[in-house]
């Protein structure tokens, strides 16, 4: 023992305890930036609701008083309630069978039906709303014109500018969320569970209703709640379809308050608060359901080949059902825009004389309206920059969340999810209050939009990156460290290359979302800082059918190119079959 104690011990110099300083530094920075992005505008929104004007530090409850005694509030509450509840109900009613058809039956053309999941990814709600406004307006809507032409009826068949119209269009564009959640759950279910029911004596139909659907219930519910949140949040559809019919909901009413002369900033902030609370409650409920989902352990990471149910003759009914949905949600709207981009004047029959490329040429040469190219440039700059910043933040956030433990992990998980529950309108109001004053006077610049986009879509990026990060064993990094690589080197040489597909998928997802963002942009843009979605809305307001159509198609084309690129890159960048 003595000899051991006497032996000369060499103590290495410059060793920190705990190790990995650079890592801790970056972690603190990540947490800080995320917190500022998410909490700073929320804080100012709250402050704003108590301040009569942005620049004067004063406390008053007058904004709340005005909002809660206003004549619009009961109507707004009623409209929002009816619209969101009905939309959630119908989206679930439509989406679950659609998911079941794709995941569990032998219906033909399933690849085509699977496009349903892609619709909201490709078609912004703005496009659907505008297309349906053209299709279903009571006097000039194509469906109504065709109907009176066929039957001679004076009455319009379908007036889209109504609560019914609002619910129909909302449902069409939100059904895919339920579909997506449910079909994934149904595909990943262990077929043993259903086989066990069959052996016990249950027929296919009984098995579906007593085993399959209940097991998918957490997924169905969490899809439904997402639809609920989205229906509260989306601005484009109530703005394009509700407002012309005099139907105002929360987000459009907030917009009205900002449009007024003078703009009622604090009323908008006060009205944002209940909206935020409802969304937060819904998100909390969804998290509880997802948390419960784990006890079902139907998703074990294994890939299953689910048993398909033979539908016989009914498979054509199933196909027709799916086909009808696709026609209403995708085919008709795109036909409208294609027609719109080459027709001389809206409503003319399609003959060679009536077709023209004039509008296309004027659109792309920029002759039509300087707004067009300006907005395309702004959108590209914002989305490229925003998606890049957001994906870096998302990567760091998912890394520290997946590799960390305890309180900082819980906080990162929480803070990176919160924006899901913040409607674009609410973020916009918060940002208006936050960045109209020193030290960050960003109102009137593109920066405020960049911040809005980064904040709104961080959850998408985190989701995309973490789903690939959890597939990467921590042993891979540990092996790099053991071999002699420091933290940054291990991150760059081992983690980043392996994460590339996930990073790129997250980047594309956020880029596409940012390209079409309207809910916040419409309240934050200033003259010269219009984005494509804003331009689309403004052009639609000006009733220029052809340019609206061309703008819509351009927006979709850019999204599609991006998605196509992503598929190429993911395929090419994976020589060793990494995942």
């Amino acid at each position, binding site marked *: 023992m003595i000899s051991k104690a006497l032996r000369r011990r060499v103590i*290495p110099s410059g060793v920190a305890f705990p190790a990995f300083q650079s890592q801790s530094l970056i972690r603190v920075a990540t947490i800080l930036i995320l917190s500022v992005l998410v909490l700073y505008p929320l804080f100012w929104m709250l402050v704003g609701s108590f301040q009569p004007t942005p620049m004067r530090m004063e406390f008053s409850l007058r904004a709340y008083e005005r909002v809660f005694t206003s004549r619009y509030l009961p109507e707004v509450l009623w409209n929002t309630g009816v619209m969101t509840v009905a939309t959630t109900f119908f989206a679930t009613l439509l989406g679950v069978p659609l998911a079941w058809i794709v995941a569990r039956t032998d219906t033909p053309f399933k690849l085509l039906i699977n496009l349903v999941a892609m619709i909201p990814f490709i078609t912004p709600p703005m496009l659907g709303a505008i297309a349906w406004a053209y299709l279903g307006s009571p006097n000039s809507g194509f469906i109504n014109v065709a109907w009176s032409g066929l039957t001679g009826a004076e009455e319009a068949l379908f007036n889209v500018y109504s609560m019914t119209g609002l619910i129909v269009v909302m449902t069409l564009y939100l059904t895919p969320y339920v579909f997506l959640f449910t079909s994934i759950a149904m595909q990943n279910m262990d077929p043993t569970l259903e086989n066990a029911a069959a052996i016990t004596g249950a027929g296919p139909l009984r098995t579906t209703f007593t085993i399959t659907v209940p097991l998918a219930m957490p997924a169905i519910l969490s899809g439904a709640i997402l639809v609920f949140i989205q229906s509260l949040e989306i601005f484009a559809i109530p703005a394009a379809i509700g407002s012309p019919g005099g139907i105002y909901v929360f987000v459009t009413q907030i917009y009205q308050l900002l449009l007024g002369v003078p703009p009622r900033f604090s009323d908008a902030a006060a009205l944002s608060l209940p909206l935020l609370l409802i969304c937060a409650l819904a998100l909390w409920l969804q998290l509880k359901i997802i948390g419960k989902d784990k006890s079902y352990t139907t998703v074990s990471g294994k890939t299953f080949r689910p048993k398909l149910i033979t539908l016989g003759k009914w498979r054509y009914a199933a196909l027709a059902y799916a086909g009808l949905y696709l026609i209403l949600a995708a085919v008709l709207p795109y036909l409208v825009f294609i027609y719109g981009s080459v027709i001389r004047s809206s409503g003319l029959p399609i003959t060679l004389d009536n077709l023209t490329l004039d509008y296309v040429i004027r659109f792309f040469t920029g002759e039509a309206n300087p707004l067009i190219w300006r907005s395309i440039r702004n959108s590209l700059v914002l989305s490229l920059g925003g998606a890049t910043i957001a994906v870096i933040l998302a990567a760091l956030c998912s890394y520290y969340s997946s590799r960390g433990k305890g309180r900082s992990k819980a906080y990162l998980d929480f803070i990176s999810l919160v924006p899901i529950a913040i409607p674009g309108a609410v973020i916009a109001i918060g940002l208006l209050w936050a960045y109209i004053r020193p030290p960050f006077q960003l109102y009137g610049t593109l920066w405020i939009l960049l911040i809005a986009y980064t904040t709104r879509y961080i959850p998408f990026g985190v989701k995309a990156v973490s789903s690939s990060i959890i597939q990467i064993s921590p042993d891979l990094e540990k092996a790099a460290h*053991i071999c*002699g690589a420091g933290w940054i080197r291990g991150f760059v040489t081992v983690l980043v290359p392996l994460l590339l597909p996930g990073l790129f998928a997250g980047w594309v997802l956020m880029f596409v979302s940012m390209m079409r963002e309207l809910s916040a942009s419409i309240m934050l843009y200033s003259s010269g800082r219009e984005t494509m979605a804003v331009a689309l809305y403004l052009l639609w307001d000006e009733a220029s059918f052809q340019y609206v159509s061309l703008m819509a198609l351009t927006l979709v084309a850019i999204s599609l190119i991006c998605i196509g690129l992503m598929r190429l890159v993911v395929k090419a960048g994976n020589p060793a079959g990494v995942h």
Partner: protein
Amino acid sequence: MKNVEINGLTKFYGDVKAVDDIYLRVNQGEMITLLGPSGCGKSTTLNMIAGFETLDAGEIYVGDNVISSHTLSVMLPPHKRNLGMVFQSYGLWPHMTVAQNIGYGLKLRGIRGAKAKERIADALRLVRLEPYANRYPSQLSGGQQQRVSFARAVVYNPDVLLLDEPLSNLDATLREEMRFELKELQEKTGLTTIFVTHDQMEAMVMSDRIVVMQAGKIVQIGEPRDIYESPANRFVASFIGVTNFAEGEVLSRSDSGMRVALGGAVLACAARPDIAVGEKALVSIRPQDWSADTVQPEAGTPNLIESRVEKVVYLGGSYEIWTVTAGARFRIHRYGELSVSPGDTLYHWVAPERVRIIPN
């Protein structure tokens, strides 16, 4: 190649002592195994040596260098420890070829170009995977990945090699082959090696010395044969191999031996100074140490027990006979033919030196 010294190593997880004040010295070139059931603290110990876990008390030396010390506030990060490690999941980087995987650690040590190529080739030759240099890990079998992982860990000649349950992801046949292969590779490289496993056969085959751990503590350190033949306590005896336990009472004690009463039978065994006459003692007899016959052996056969056969199990090449006698049950291993069936009377006896008294 350096020795490793661990003094008073302790780790808490919340209120639980995952590793509880352990002391251990691993000699140069020695292969030592940390053996124990899951949760015994063996992996935590390894992770502390690797630098992935901080210490709550104690210190770790490699050669003359302290790499972790709670009192000195030293925590060398893993990449500065110059260790090699083979992970349970192999941890091969899927986006790098076999050669790139192996060359990674060399590059970080400033070894590049022809020199690196040569070392990579040597490592590949060592694990007999020369033709696979340009394959990706996903194109290799489990055993091959295992060997690449080994080559990657040893190519830069680390001070200590750490093996974290490297065989547990392989299927049974391959696992058995790889035991010998890993041991052979370790001997060839001559590296000081710390091996963690819960598989007692792996530990037996591969180690110079075994460290048996239970609930964060070291319960016994010794050569495989010592551990098997003189287990320090009931836990070690039952964890390493199958054994018959019986509670007995010491009847007499002399220099030449003790006599222990087991129900109706009296067994002679080696004397132990730590147990007095009249005390309870735990007796352990390995199933294969019994001799057995259906006819009564000649008088004077030591430690003869007469019992009734309960069950006979064929194990492939050998039988296990379960018997019961007044106050005790036994499992007896027999090679070759012995026609007994349940209900028969069986005579079995055991040499006194094969009867082990386990301290309670």
